């Protein structure tokens, strides 16, 4: 009779996800590229904000740039607005765009598979590890820029995008919330990076995917696209945080932006996951799944854009460019009233309330032959307001440059004593004139009949 002395060999079980995750994290953090990025994200914004805040000329083209002397919180928002167009897509490209391709280049797939024994777990570990590194990078940008601003300028109230003042605590909360909001589109870009890295094998094209997408979406943002298309693109959420700085907050575009970004993140990740599980790990010359990418990745994303477009069109009052005369007038009058009050305080005049001012605006775009809607730098508005106790109505003229994303810069065009000069003379010396030039943000989704 024969007996088996060898114990029945059990099939090896896959490694726990936590261990795989830790290994992926160690691998990422051991790369000099990632280390340099981490260092840069944790140091550069603080230096940048501090340096710019101490200069006399401020980056007024960027939202909140003009307030960098007034409060430390503005600097972080300037960094946020800078990063959204290039830095964040680039970070996602450098982190997520290479996690899979790196193993192809090193020829380590087989060994990783033998060690982990589950492509699924490898995918999850890699996804989580890149996510962690991205969070560290974004946290660095946020923390460092806030620290730089607070150290160089201080913890003061922040003027919102409709001129209302946010107390330091509110400003802190809203700034942090804004950074949290851009995490959603960052995730979407990271998922595109994963998809590229899985799909394009060891070529560095995967690295370029988020950057290319960012570039294409930047171009799209510049075009006068209908608002429903704009909102259907994942880059919109990179802008929508601005709506948090008006009262009431413009939550419609923000929620849609977040939802679209997260949907992109999910679709791209699922596509990457399916491509990954289908690939051939034993082929050392594997160089991406080529045409399958189109079917597995690009088509679902295109379908997602169409679906979002249809949903936004059907369920929101969005139409055309979303920039209409009534909305511009309402937004400008509100901002003017808030900032007028601020100027009054600067000049140590008796306080007035926005309600007493009853400010209104009357706008025209490009003369009588042009329809009063859409982006352009040819908006011309007259603001009228009432002073308590006086019968005369004050008026001031503004030239508005409205961009397709709803942001505008209002440039004072007289009278001189109200908005003609960038400073006002106060009893304690010259101070910046809040009415000379200011930023505003039109809610692209608000229905016109509201105001």
């Amino acid at each position, binding site marked *: 009779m024969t007996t088996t002395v060898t114990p029945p060999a059990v099939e090896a079980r896959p490694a726990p996800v936590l261990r795989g995750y830790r290994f992926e994290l*160690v691998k990422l953090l051991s790369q000099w590229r990632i280390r340099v990025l981490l260092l840069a994200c944790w140091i550069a914004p603080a230096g940048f904000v501090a340096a710019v805040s101490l200069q006399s000329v401020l980056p007024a083209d960027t939202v909140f740039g003009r307030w960098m002397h007034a409060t430390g919180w503005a600097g972080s928002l300037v960094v946020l607005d800078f990063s959204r167009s290039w830095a964040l897509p680039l970070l996602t490209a450098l982190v997520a765009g290479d996690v899979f391709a790196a193993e192809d280049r090193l020829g380590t797939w087989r060994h990783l598979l033998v060690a982990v024994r589950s492509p699924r777990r490898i995918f999850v570990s890699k996804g989580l590890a890149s996510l962690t590194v991205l969070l560290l990078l974004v946290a660095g940008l946020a923390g460092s820029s806030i620290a730089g601003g607070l150290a160089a300028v201080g913890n003061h109230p922040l003027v919102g995008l409709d001129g209302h003042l946010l107390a330091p605590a509110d400003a802190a909360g809203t700034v942090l919330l804004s950074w949290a909001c851009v995490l959603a589109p960052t995730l979407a870009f990271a998922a595109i990076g994963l998809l590229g890295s899985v799909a394009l094998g060891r070529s560095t094209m995967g690295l370029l995917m988020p950057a290319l997408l960012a570039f294409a979406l930047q171009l799209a943002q510049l075009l006068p696209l209908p608002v429903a298309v704009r909102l259907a693109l994942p880059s919109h959420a990179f802008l929508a945080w601005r709506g948090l700085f008006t009262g009431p907050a413009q939550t419609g575009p923000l929620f849609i932006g977040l939802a679209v970004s997260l949907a992109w993140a999910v679709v791209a990740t699922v596509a990457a996951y399916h491509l990954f599980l289908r690939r051939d790990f034993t082929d050392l010359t594997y160089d991406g799944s080529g045409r399958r990418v189109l079917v597995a990745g690009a088509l679902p994303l295109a379908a997602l854009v169409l679906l979002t477009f249809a949903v936004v069109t059907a369920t929101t009052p969005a139409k055309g460019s979303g920039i209409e005369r009534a909305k511009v007038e309402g937004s400008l009058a509100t901002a003017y009233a808030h900032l007028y009050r601020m100027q009054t305080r600067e000049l140590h005049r008796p306080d007035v309330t926005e309600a007493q001012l009853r400010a209104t605006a009357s706008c025209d775009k490009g003369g009588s032959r042009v329809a009063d809607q859409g982006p352009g730098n040819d908006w011309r508005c007259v603001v009228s307001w009432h002073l308590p106790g006086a019968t005369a109505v004050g008026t001031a003229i503004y030239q508005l440059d409205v961009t397709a994303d709803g942001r505008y810069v209002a440039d004072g065009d007289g009278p001189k004593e109200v908005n003609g000069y960038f400073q006002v003379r106060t009893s304690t010396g010259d101070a910046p004139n809040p009415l000379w030039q200011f930023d505003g943000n039109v809610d692209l989704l608000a229905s016109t009949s509201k105001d």
Partner: protein
Amino acid sequence: MHESPAVRGRRIKKSFGDVVALDGVDLDVAAGQVHGLVGPNGAGKTTLLGLLLGLAVADGGELEILGTPVGRTLAVPDGVAGFVDGPGLYPSLTARQNLSALASLRGYDAGRGVDDALEQVGLTDVADDRIRGFSLGMRQRLGLAAALLTRPRLLVLDEPANGLDPAGKHHVHRVITGLAADGVAVVLSSHRMDDLAALCSEVTVLATGRVVFSGPVTKLAAESGALDYRLLTSDTAAARRVALDTPGIRVPSGGDRVQRPDADVLVVRGAVPAVEELVVRLVRAEVAVRELAPVVAPLEAAFLALTGAVPTDEEVS
């Protein structure tokens, strides 16, 4: 008593598109055996070892590893370790980090095991260096250390001799013999027979996906048939005459003075009995034999004859 063999493969087939990499290969490896897999480049060694590691699945045939039939990718049982196509380490990590990570992934206690493994392959001194700067041989040894971590019962190594210096070879040989003595089955591949002769008790010779020889190394030597021998004598001219008269011995034209143009070397070709007869005749003819040695080692010659390969010194792949 019956112990299931470490590897039992029957009629294994594997193709990549039109390329038939393995064409009905049988492989038997017992526990405690060091088994060599030899064959020229493209013979299918790496493909076969990949099947043992569960990196791919055969298209046909049966494969049992450590007593378990293997049918799916990555479904090989615990206790199998090794690597094909390079040790697959991460250049940005140190030797120790590479090993610790693997140990942790496979659920082994890092720490002492890692130090032990590094010690066994002689890499203790460079344990905390990034392996970016390691030579090929050092990487091979580190790959072996990684395999040792898991305390395997079947160790699979693809071309472990590549890039090893004599000291490295010594470490690797010692580790492998030690493992075999402990009952671990070891399967090694090489494109050169002489790398394996000292180490393996059994060899399987592959040529274009087919087994052309399988058995003990000693038996392989007997397959060699007629060999070329270098013959150095006190009188080359006399020796040449004797050789031409000896049945079964040929003197290839231009065969003399090939090895050392300045010395009186004669190259003769013949099987072992004929060469023995030649020596007897030389002595009778009062020609002193100073040196008699095969031009190519018998194993290598057998290997070259079996696989129809031309001798190479460099791995071409």
